[in-house]
């Protein structure tokens, strides 16, 4: 186990800078997820930690030791590659134990580890096969096995589940959580899938275009996104972003007044007379049907939303509605009697809504 620190990391390929001033602290035994859209520099960050890329500037520390000049083979990390990178000429067993054999581990230890890992990953019947004889999911499990069989200081996972079907992905997610609970090895996990990020990480780091946009616990990120990008990237369906105008005691949305829970202190946010234009962010899951909850005074209400489409999703139904000129999504539970083509009054807790500056896209702290 070890801690990992990135200090003021810049990385350029030729003239293109792909990482800009990355700072990251990963505590001993933590499970940190790097999440962001494809091409934002997640793999590059991971490869810098592994030593497969050199930082253009800045320091990489493992166990509080600067490792910039240390070769990957001496960093004692284990990595699951985005493309598996299994040794095609070795069978599953040899693939898994290759690292242990290189480290000259005793035979009985190797056998014990192999047995255990192949049991956890359900690879027992595949040990004698070559990678070419495995399905994508099986290969992914072998790649995983090759990493976790070792006594590495840090596990690095690069989108290890991207190639699995939904069911297997879910299963492997639980498996990874269980493995981490058991081994407590410091893990850094890269994914573009925000669900994976939210379910796996103790800490989530959201990246975009080579910048870290926000880091924190999954709940912090979900409930207090720093900016519009994080707010819309995390959570599915993504957060509604509505054009609205802020006044001291209320927000105006398409001519409707939505009351704030408390008046804005005008020293914090200077408000012009005609109000401040901003983005109002509400997650679809936070809407309620007024017909079901009844008149509760502390909730804000969007009235006469016109229902375009209702998608039944089992327990939930997802509504595409139109308020004035703006579209939004709402996820209501199955009690709602709403029908397509009719109108609905949607309630929400104003404390759960976010306000974002139109120019900087940053969240304004109003609550």
């Amino acid at each position, binding site marked *: 186990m070890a801690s990992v620190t990135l200090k003021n990391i810049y990385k350029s390929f030729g003239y293109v800078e792909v990482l800009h001033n990355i700072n990251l602290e990963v505590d001993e035994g933590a499970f940190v997820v790097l999440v962001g859209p494809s091409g934002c520099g997640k793999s590059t960050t991971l490869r810098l930690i592994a030593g*497969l890329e050199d930082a253009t500037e800045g320091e990489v520390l493992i166990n509080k030791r600067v490792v910039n000049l240390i*070769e990957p*083979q001496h960093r004692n990390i284990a990595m699951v590659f985005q493309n598996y*990178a*299994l040794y*095609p000429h070795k069978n599953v067993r040899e693939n898994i134990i*290759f690292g242990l054999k290189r480290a000259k581990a005793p035979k009985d230890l190797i056998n014990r580890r192999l047995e255990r890992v192949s049991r956890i990953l359900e690879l027992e019947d595949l040990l004698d096969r070559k*990678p070419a004889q495995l399905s994508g999911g099986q*290969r992914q499990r072998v790649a995983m096995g090759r990493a976790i069989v070792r006594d590495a200081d840090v596990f*690095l996972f690069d989108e290890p589940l991207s190639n699995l079907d939904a069911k297997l992905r879910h299963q492997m997610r639980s498996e990874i959580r269980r493995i981490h609970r058991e081994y407590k090895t410091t893990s850094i996990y890269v994914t573009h899938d925000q669900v994976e990020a939210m379910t796996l990480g103790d800490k989530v780091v959201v990246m975009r275009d080579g910048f870290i946009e926000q880091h924190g616990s999954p709940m912090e990120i979900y409930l207090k996104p720093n900016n519009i990008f994080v707010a819309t990237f995390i959570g599915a369906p993504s957060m509604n972003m509505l054009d609205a105008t802020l006044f001291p005691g209320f927000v105006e949305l398409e001519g409707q007044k939505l009351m704030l829970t408390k008046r804005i202190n005008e020293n914090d946010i200077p408000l012009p007379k005609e109000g401040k234009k901003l983005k109002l962010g509400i997650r679809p899951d936070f809407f309620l049907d007024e017909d079901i909850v009844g008149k509760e005074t502390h909730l804000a209400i969007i009235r006469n939303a016109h229902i375009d489409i209702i998608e039944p999703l089992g327990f939930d139904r997802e509504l595409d509605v139109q308020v004035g000129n703006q579209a939004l999504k709402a996820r209501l539970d199955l009690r709602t009697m709403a029908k397509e083509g009719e109108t609905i009054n949607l309630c929400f807790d104003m404390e759960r809504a976010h306000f974002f500056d139109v120019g900087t896209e940053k969240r304004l702290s109003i609550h």
Partner: protein
Amino acid sequence: MIGKRSFLQNIFLALAVGSVLFICLFPFIQILSTSLKHQFDWGNPSLIPMKINLEAYRELLGFGKMKDAPIPDTIKRLLDNPLITEKKKDEIISKYRSTGDVFPFPRYFLNTFILSASAASISLILAVFGAYSFSRLRFKGRSTIQRSILFVYMVGGVMLMVPLYQMSVKAGLTKTVWGSLLSLLLIYIIQTLPVSLYMLGNYFRTIPYSLEEAAATDGCSRIEAIFFIILPLSAPMLVTVFVYCFIIAWNEFLFASVFIKQFHDFHTLPLALQSLFVSKNAIWDRIMSASMLTLLPVIFCFMFVMRNLTGGLTAGGVKE
């Protein structure tokens, strides 16, 4: 269905393929046939010997007794001259009958084998490291070096022969037999290296770099990754390159004829065959069986390569 051939088309195809094959193979069949014929059969146009004669093979491989070379009629007439003493006669006859230097095939075979195998091994080892650095490492002047190596092929061997020989003379290598052999070895290596580098380099490029990265995270240095991952994956190509170099050296005549002509004991097979053709020991079945035996390793090598070239070793390692 697209690409489905009719019966007639099939027949034509078979005929066409068959005739090309026959034209290609005819010289070899001729060699084989003649090597198995008895003397009375030599002039016979049939490819099938009337009676199989294995004497020549036996003799070359050292199982049988050397056949006496026929004594030319002029010499016979000379021998009939009563003025020549018995002792003198015996001397003349034994000179013609002496079999010691007729054609020590095993010796020539061994010479050629050792020379070709060493050239091929060294060329292969150099090619592995050279091709690896061309395909994986970044250094100043890489592409210039890579291209200039192909210059070796721009100039034909004949033109290089005199300068190369002079270089060896100046270096004092041609004074001894070992020096001459060393020059020859170096020339074979230099001649085969460009293509070896090219073939191996292209093959290495098909091996995903992430396999080496995986090996690095598994604790391998670069050299270890080459030995544990790259080389096993390249086995078919390594065999092919080795065989290519081996055959080039095995069949090479020009340089051998210049550098080691004077050292009879160290002749290679092409050189020895040529001497055999023009010697008094040139008997058809002997010539042809010697040719056949020279061909044999080449044929064997080709079959070996074809079995190994089915390839596909890197399949399944990475997600495409």
